[in-house]
């Protein structure tokens, strides 16, 4: 991006040229969990990295990177695609949204919750099969502070660029720790009691603007979004393209997988545990908290004995975990005994670590 496209008037001493965007994976490039496959969440679930569903009823929409295979806006190669799976009339106390929770450390400089709170500007590209007024909201972690916003989609199935400037909230409690600082929601159908007046702060739990269009209300309706940027200040600057590796690394603070492909080694520690194979998994970076570690759904753990053939896995357990490491132990029935130091290795990606907000 030519630097001339960024007006110096849009920058101040703390909103510099780099890392202006408080949203991680705003270009929807990273999809560690599903690798481009479609998912239909039955409850709140992370989809593309850092983007979670906010849902009161199961299976009302699917989420997929580049759903429908339309051409993204110029400069982007990916988008997050929502497809409604039914014509659901959202009850007054229910709601559906795509959400990103921004870690408190990454918005602390905004000074929200006190006099002098900085304004922020949200910008994004959106495309829908529906037209009309759509909505979303910013919330604090307790969801006791809300700023509903609205935007118009004027033409069906056409990418449109939107910006919303939001005055900083001078009241409320906004976490500036490794907890959730700001919740950004894009409404997909929100009931009346969870919707509020657009363009003003409220001491309530609102996820969208009153009267906004419901995507889940129309079977087959689509809602595609990319280039999401939330930055300090009252003007939108061009989307901050970060290198893929940088964006992946930012995501891995919250979620990562142990990528196994005949590596790494799981080894027998000593002669007392001749069929216990342990690996100390070093996470790519310090995770936000000690992560939850689990076997990836739908996988069957297979281990290779380096030329001897597959091992037979009878169980596995995750041992001690902290922000930096997790210990995984696999027990085999075949081989039932091996010398200390012997090693086997996974033949696929079977474990995940999540420290999501």
């Amino acid at each position, binding site marked *: 991006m030519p630097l001339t496209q960024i007006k110096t008037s849009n920058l101040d001493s703390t909103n510099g040229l780099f890392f202006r965007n408080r949203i991680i994976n705003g270009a929807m490039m990273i999809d560690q969990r599903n690798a481009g496959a479609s998912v239909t969440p039955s409850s709140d679930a992370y989809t593309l990295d850092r983007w979670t569903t906010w849902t009161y009823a199961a299976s009302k929409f699917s989420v997929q990177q580049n759903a429908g295979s339309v051409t993204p806006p110029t400069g982007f190669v990916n988008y997050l695609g929502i497809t409604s799976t039914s014509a659901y009339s959202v009850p007054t106390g229910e709601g559906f949204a795509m959400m990103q929770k921004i870690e408190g450390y990454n918005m602390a400089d905004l000074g929200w919750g006190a006099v002098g709170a900085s304004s922020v500007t949200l910008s994004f590209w959106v495309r829908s099969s529906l037209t009309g007024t759509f909505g979303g909201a910013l919330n604090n972690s307790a969801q006791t502070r809300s700023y509903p916003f609205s935007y118009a989609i004027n033409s069906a199935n056409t990418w449109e660029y939107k910006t919303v400037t939001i005055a900083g909230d001078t009241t409320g409690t906004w976490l500036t720790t490794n*907890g959730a600082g700001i919740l950004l929601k894009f409404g997909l159908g929100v009931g009346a009691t969870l919707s509020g007046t657009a363009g003003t702060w409220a001491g309530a739990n609102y996820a969208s603007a009153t009267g906004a269009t419901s995507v889940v209300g129309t079977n087959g309706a689509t809602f595609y979004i990319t280039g999401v940027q939330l930055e300090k200040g009252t003007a939108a600057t061009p989307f901050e393209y970060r290198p893929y590796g940088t964006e992946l690394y930012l995501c891995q603070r919250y979620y990562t997988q142990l990528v196994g492909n005949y590596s790494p080694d799981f080894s027998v520690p000593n002669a007392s545990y001749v069929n216990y194979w342990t690996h100390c998994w070093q996470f790519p970076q310090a995770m936000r908290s*000690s992560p*939850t570690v*689990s076997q990836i759904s739908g996988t069957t753990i297979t281990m290779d004995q380096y030329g001897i053939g597959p091992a037979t896995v009878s169980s596995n357990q995750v041992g*001690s*975990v902290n922000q930096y490491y997790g210990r995984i*132990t696999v027990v085999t029935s075949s081989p039932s005994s091996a010398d200390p130091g012997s090693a086997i290795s996974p033949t696929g990606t079977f474990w995940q670590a999540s420290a999501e907000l």
Partner: protein
Amino acid sequence: MTYQYLKDPYTKQNRIDAIYRVEDRATIPLDPANTDYQVYLKWLEEGNTPEPADE
């Protein structure tokens, strides 16, 4: 949701650093910043108790 205590595979002692969530085979460290642990604490407050560890 169902939770279960864990035994250390080596020492065979009950672990005091993690709880097991049965449905998705997830090991949850007892870290107050871990959101799964926060959900587990609410589950306890509702009067629930974890299953004993497998022998």
